[in-house]
């Protein structure tokens, strides 16, 4: 199966490393682009060579060859779209994804923007074209939560989704709880360890978790919810005293994303949980509980980000597409 990769940051590199490491998967790279260069070869590109070039020159291919050129050439079965997230417009990724679907190509993405903004439209487009749109990597990193909803738990109806969807916040809250750090101290530590961005607003204000919740909710119920529907409270208001008051009750505080159409509720907010609760997880981990009518509660936990972990979700999507749509060998 031929794949074209748009974006060569942490995630794109992670995918190429897996391709280099596991040739037996039969995933052949035929196109790749970063923000200023690209490479197209219908006969296959050596992913190791792309990584070397990117590492030494910061360009992965021919200068001036763009994502649009790769889409124009169309020499691939699946587009792997892993460019930066734009939460307000979804661009340029949204346009790349639309173009690929319209021209009859499958799409796998880790990009929350387009999926949160245009899920229904893109799904319809994929259905009309008879191709797949998969986005496991957009939520919960390595955790196969969308696989669980779409295949493992088929036949169930979801009552609610509840989860810890932002590793940065979970790290900060874990440290405030364990060490009695103030919010500012814990944030500074998270930054130093590379768990928080220079501008952590999206994470600590709960927006990143809310975007992921929108994606999960639309995957589950297809009710067309948007980021504006989510009631959001971040963690930047939390005091040392708040964690101590919770601790006095044998509880702690975590940033919880929660959606339940039955209760007319979709929100992200810090919440008090008993320490024994399955969503009380440590550090940068993520977890999601799916409350289903047949299965009851199913909780999945794992690494919510990282180059290799996110590549795991992408490769899983790619192989699911191969098994469903493309004759092997």
């Amino acid at each position: 199966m031929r794949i074209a990769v748009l974006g060569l940051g942490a995630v794109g590199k992670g995918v190429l490393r897996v391709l280099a490491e596991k040739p037996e998967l039969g995933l052949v790279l035929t196109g790749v682009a970063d923000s200023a260069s690209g490479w197209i070869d219908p006969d296959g590109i050596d992913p190791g060579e792309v990584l070397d070039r990117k590492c030494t020159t910061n360009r992965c291919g021919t200068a001036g060859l763009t994502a649009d050129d790769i889409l124009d050439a169309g020499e691939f079965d699946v587009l792997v779209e892993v460019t930066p997230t734009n939460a307000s417009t979804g661009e340029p990724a949204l346009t790349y994804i639309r173009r690929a679907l319209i021209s009859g190509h499958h799409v796998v993405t880790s990009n929350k923007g387009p999926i949160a903004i245009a899920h229904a439209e893109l799904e319809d487009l994929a259905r009309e074209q008879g191709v797949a749109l998969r986005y496991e990597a957009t939520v919960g990193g390595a955790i196969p939560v969308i696989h669980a909803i779409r295949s493992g738990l088929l036949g169930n109806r979801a009552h609610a989704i509840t989860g810890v969807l932002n590793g940065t916040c979970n790290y900060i809250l874990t440290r405030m709880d364990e060490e009695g750090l103030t919010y500012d101290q814990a944030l500074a530590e998270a930054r130093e360890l590379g768990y928080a961005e220079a501008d952590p607003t999206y994470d600590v204000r709960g927006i990143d978790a809310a975007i992921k919740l929108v994606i999960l909710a639309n995957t589950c119920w297809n009710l067309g919810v948007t980021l504006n529907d989510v009631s959001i409270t971040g963690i930047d208001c939390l005091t040392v005293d708040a964690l101590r008051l919770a601790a006095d009750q044998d509880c702690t505080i975590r940033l919880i994303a929660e959606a339940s159409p039955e209760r007319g509720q979709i929100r992200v907010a810090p919440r008090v949980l008993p320490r024994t609760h399955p969503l009380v997880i440590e550090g940068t981990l993520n977890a999601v509980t799916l409350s289903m009518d047949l299965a009851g509660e199913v909780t999945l936990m794992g690494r919510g980000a990282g180059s290799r972990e996110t590549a795991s979700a992408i490769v899983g999507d790619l192989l699911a597409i191969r098994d469903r749509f493309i004759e092997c060998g």
Partner: protein
Amino acid sequence: MRKWVNNEGLSSAWIKVMGEGISVHVSMKLEIKDSPGQLVAALTPISEYGGNIIAVIHQREPETSSDTLGVQIVLEIDHERLDGLVAALRRQGVNILRLGEERLLFRQSVIMIGHLIHTDIGDTIDRIDRTGFAEVAELNVQMPAITEPSTALITIKATTRSKMDRALDLLREVAAEKGLVIVEPLEEADR
């Protein structure tokens, strides 16, 4: 998620924080023999089952035969033990004429953060108390460290689940108005 509430390992603190209605208000009308010691005999199982008697009202009604006595009792009891109590009373030969409507006694604690004192904490409490169906049962305010906003644990009691929801809605409203943040327990899905 309700099943977590019943898990063995759960602390009483969890139940308290979750505000699950663990005790109920029950009013029952009993018919007991009008002879010495009978009332005490009827009341004994209530304490054995951990019930807390709130009121005992004797009533002699014309339709009851002369050798029996009607007694109305209002008590508070763990709702899981109510059935056991009813059976025990019947074993004692007590005739239960009527079992009054249960009133769940909900308790829920939330954490409030912000300039609690400067936004008139007295008024915040009043707004809940004035509803008539809910009240602030406990308030634990932590005084701020230097420039931090203050933090409080506020425990609300309400008569029913929906009244609790209304009280919490009201608290959210007041908090939004005053720029306070509320950290609620992760509530369990009601099914």
